[in-house]
């Protein structure tokens, strides 16, 4: 019997300082110390600590060590594993502003071991729900105030009760795990780190709405998540937790996985349903809503991974407990994938209402490399940017919407002074243009035309009239697009225009990119004083616009230069200037 478990975070297997070697070093050190039988070592995908090198978690003491080096192994074995004492200087202390409800088990259990999950109150909520009955479960959800974490923020309890009340002898429960926002991996971490929590949420939801079949719609790019959910389903079935007569009750429900083929729009509910049915994944008009006429025409409830992971603690601790966390309109916590120009990037989970400033500066440690903070982008490609002076806003569904952004699924990208807002708008819009299904005219053509306008502005070909055109198309897209993708695709453009119109005007009127990001607007010259006459710039230039030799030095022919910036990147002496 193992007395202790050591979780080692699986970051970069194979590299010289990576976990693979560390893992081997650790296990062989254990063997030398004759502790192999007492200590179980598990390679974990996610411990909830990021950008902190190799991370170890020791159970049952629940001690976390970060930035562990191979030379720390003997110390850890000697001090902690043999005597149970913590090593202060290695210990990782998470910011107290975080609250881990959804990520409660991530990094604390072996996700492939159902007993680990069960030992942490796993499947007790399901048992409790089965005793209480569907109405009590839905009422508990309504009390909790939980809203959908996929982006829309629709009250989960209401969704369940609507699906539950829809007439139909057959109903379906779907877990939407088609996470697709660039840089977002909240759902993936939960699926990989705590698959049983999502399964338990699915079973409770299925019980509440009267479904006997559930589907996990997981994007195919998440092979580990798929593997772990499948194993978790199989293990749960072996324990009688999935399948016929769960807990010997009259409730039976089976679960299956369906793979998404990589279309962003398939995260939209009606497109997701079409995709599961084997049709082209395009949205359909609503009504009929999925709760009335969903998968194969049957009432269907679709919940996001994070939403479902919230369900077991709500049932166990009560809806009232949950509703005490968060703000008036948004209850509970939210997981964000904090990335971009930030010191501590990674997954964070905070109570609703935590200010953006706390998230960016306290938890995230502020912009990396000391640059000036410019804006934070929330809500993924459908979201918007929020500038510095609004950072004291607490994050919840309604606040973010008021600021012209959205909660979305939880992407949060920090931008500093090097980021050009026209370029940012272009990046996000391009994503939506590429991912538009092409069904409705406003999104299909509107997005494309807007992108064309932005490209013109970034190349110094814009006019002030273009700003009106952008707003006009954006409005048509918001009002007349069929689905959420099109209705929100213009948000990045509108919110950058709202807070950074000066930057757009600078591009248009003065043909200048203040962040020096839009290369077409930059002029490149070689500073003769700093030039070491190595000739690397001339060899790099794709247009042969740089001439000269080792004696005379090098000059850029402005008529040939296409402002690609390759010489600027190439020069090791900072002799290429861009203005």
């Amino acid at each position, binding site marked *: 019997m193992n007395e202790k478990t050591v979780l080692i975070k699986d970051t970069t297997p194979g590299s010289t300082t990576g976990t693979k070697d560390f893992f081997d070093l650790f296990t062989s050190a254990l063997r030398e110390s004759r502790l192999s039988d007492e200590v179980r070592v598990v390679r974990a995908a996610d411990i909830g600590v990021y950008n902190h090198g190799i991370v170890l978690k020791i159970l049952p003491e629940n001690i976390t060590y970060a930035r562990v080096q191979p030379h720390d192994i003997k110390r850890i074995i000697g001090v902690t594993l043999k005597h149970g004492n913590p090593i202060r200087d290695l210990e990782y202390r998470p910011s107290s502003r975080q609250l881990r409800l959804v990520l409660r088990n991530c990094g604390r259990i072996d996700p492939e071991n159902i007993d680990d999950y069960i030992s942490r109150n796993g499947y007790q909520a399901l048992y409790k729900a089965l005793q209480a009955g569907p109405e009590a479960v839905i009422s508990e959800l309504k009390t909790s105030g939980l809203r959908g974490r996929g982006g829309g923020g629709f009250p989960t309890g209401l969704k369940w009760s609507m699906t539950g009340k829809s007439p139909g002898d057959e109903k379906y429960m779907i877990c939407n795990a088609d996470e697709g926002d660039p840089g977002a991996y909240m759902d993936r971490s939960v699926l990989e780190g705590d698959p049983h929590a999502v399964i338990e949420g699915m079973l409770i939801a299925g019980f509440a709405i009267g479904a006997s079949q559930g589907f996990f719609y997981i994007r195919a790019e998440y092979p580990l998540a798929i593997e772990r959910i499948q194993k978790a389903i199989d293990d749960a079935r072996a324990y009688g937790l999935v399948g016929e007569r769960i807990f010997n009750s009259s409730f039976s429900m089976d679960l299956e996985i369906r793979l998404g083929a990589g*279309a962003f729009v398939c995260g939209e509910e009606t497109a997701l349903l079409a995709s599961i049915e084997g049709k*082209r994944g*395009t949205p*359909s*008009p609503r*009504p009929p809503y999925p709760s009335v006429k969903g998968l194969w025409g049957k009432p269907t409830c679709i919940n996001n991974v994070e939403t479902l992971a919230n369900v077991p603690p709500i049932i166990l601790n009560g809806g009232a407990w949950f509703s005490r966390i968060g703000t008036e309109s948004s209850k509970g916590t939210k997981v964000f994938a904090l990335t971009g120009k930030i010191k501590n990037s990674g997954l964070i989970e905070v109570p609703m209402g935590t200010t953006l400033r706390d998230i960016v500066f306290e938890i995230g440690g502020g912009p990396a490399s000391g640059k000036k903070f410019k804006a934070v982008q929330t809500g993924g490609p459908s979201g918007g940017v929020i500038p510095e002076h609004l950072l004291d806003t607490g994050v919840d569904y309604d606040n973010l919407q008021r600021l012209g952004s959205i909660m979305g699924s939880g992407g949060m990208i920090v931008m500093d002074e090097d980021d050009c807002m026209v370029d940012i708008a272009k990046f996000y819009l391009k994503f939506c*243009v*590429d*991912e*538009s*299904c*092409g*069904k*409705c*005219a*406003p999104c*299909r*053509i*509107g*997005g*494309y*035309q807007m992108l*064309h306008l932005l490209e013109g502005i970034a190349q110094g070909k814009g006019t002030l009239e273009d700003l009106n*055109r952008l707003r*006009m*198309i954006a*409005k*048509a897209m918001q*009002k*007349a*697009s*069929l689905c959420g993708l099109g*209705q929100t695709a213009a948000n990045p453009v509108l919110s950058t225009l709202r807070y950074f119109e000066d930057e757009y005007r600078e591009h248009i009127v003065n043909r200048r990119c203040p962040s020096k990001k839009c290369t077409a607007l930059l002029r490149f010259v070689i500073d003769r004083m700093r030039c070491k006459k190595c000739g690397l710039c001339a060899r790099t230039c794709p247009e042969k616009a740089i001439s000269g030799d080792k004696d005379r030095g090098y000059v850029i022919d402005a008529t040939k230069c296409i402002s690609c910036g390759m010489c600027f990147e190439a020069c090791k002496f900072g002799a290429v200037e861009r203005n």
Partner: protein
Amino acid sequence: MIQATINGIPLEVAEGTTILDAARQVQVKIPTLCHHPDLPPTAACGICIVKVAGSNKMLRACCTPIEQGMKILTHDPEIVEVRRTVLELILSNHPNDCLKCGRNQSCELQNLTAAFGIREELFPKFISGIPKDDSTNAFVIEPDKCIHCGRCIEICQELQQVWALSFLGRGFASRFAPAAGMKLVESPCVECGQCSSHCPTGAIFELDETVKVWQKLQDPENYCVVQIAPSVRVAIGEAFGLPPGTNMTGKLYTVLRRLGFKAVFDTTFAADVTIMEEASEFVERFVHKKGALPLITTCCPSWVIYLEKQAPDMIEHFSSCKSPQQIMGLLAKTYYARAMQIDPSKIIMVSVMPCTSKKCELTRTEEMFASGYQDVDYALTTRELARMIKQTGKDFVNLPESEPDHILGDYTGAGVIFGSTGGVMEAALRTAHYFITGKNPETLEFEAIRGLPGVKELTLSLAGSTVRVAVAHGLGNVTSVLDRVREAKANGNPAPYDFIEVMACPGGCVGGGGQPYGVTNEIRTLRARGLYQDDRSRSIRFSHENPYVKKLYQEFLQKPLSSLAHELLHTHYVRRGQE
């Protein structure tokens, strides 16, 4: 009933009524583009958006059912601006080919542009430049003119269940095309042309052969003759502003002569001949047990293509009798040519058909050249003839009526109902009854097989035996009928039917793919009513009593199913494409 207001006007509508339909009740016309009253809403274009009090979105009137107490606003400056922007976006993705487009003056996009008073182009044009597909003889696809309304795909996949057309690609690059980007001729397409008669623009347009026909008419060397199909007479009036179902037979004869045709025949005469052959075939199989039952009709060329491509296991059940179009062509270049002492090589036979598929039938097999020449040289659709009449400035509506040319022009009531679903069967039963019992049936109107239900059945007793017939129209309705036959065969049971009629288009030829635009079930019913009225007004209502048909058999063909009749009037079928 549900109470609501539109633009402040109170109204009461049945549950499920859309905002669009309800608005008509209060004399408000909400502009639409993708919507077609014949089809479920695709909700693609976003033109019909309206405001509903309490929602900050704009909702699509075409697919949003009215709810109790809704306060709807259909027009205000903001709504009009959004609609206008969407329309301008659509125009930016549509070529300015109006003047030379086949749909000039009948284009729904053009009409809408005119209604909005758009005078300049706000956005740059982006046309994808996808080459046109003219691989079939039925119609031409010009993807650049497509506005992605999705009507053609709805029809092809849902109504007809042919699945020749689908959307391919994503976003701005999405396009409608045969599956996997193959050529139309290689696809499952059956050339029914329903896509072309529902297309709002010139993206799918019948292969226009009017110019070729004009050339033939203008060459004095040619002896141009023409035939008109039963259903054309009750539909062509719509192109000249007359109500659907108006019988234009006499005026058609006149106008065709004035266009330069030397003789005007009526396909309805050939329909009577078809009945002689087909009813005899039925008697052979049903009474004398020679050949497989059920016997299935073959007047519809799209149905023939469908069978050869998708249900070749049914070939033995097919009537070998040619369609009336082909019989007429054959008779014109043999029997008529001999009687009138005209060199058949000089005869140009033009047919006017409700159908695009008839164009392909002309060269279907070598049997379509049984006269020694191509039996029918050109098949024009109703729409093409309407254009030819307009091109010459003929006041079609006020023309005097005239008679067809004899020996191939006089028809019975049985022949004319061929143009409606159930008509071929009804005509065949009238004559089969006579062939089997030696006397005409007392009731000759079979109400059970008239009208628009997708599959209609009838059982009648004939000389002591029971004849079970089925009538299906709209290819989407065929599978269930064929599956019943297949199931009986597989189980060794007697066939569930003795005689089956299939028409590819919903409603039969009155709803054909070459008929005037804007067809709905109401219009199909009115057109059919025109044919049934014609039937009732005829003094002769049995094909076998047509004096000119009797004369034809006496002077030329001897008797139905004679060896000459077999040689000239019958064909065969082969498996096409992969199963």
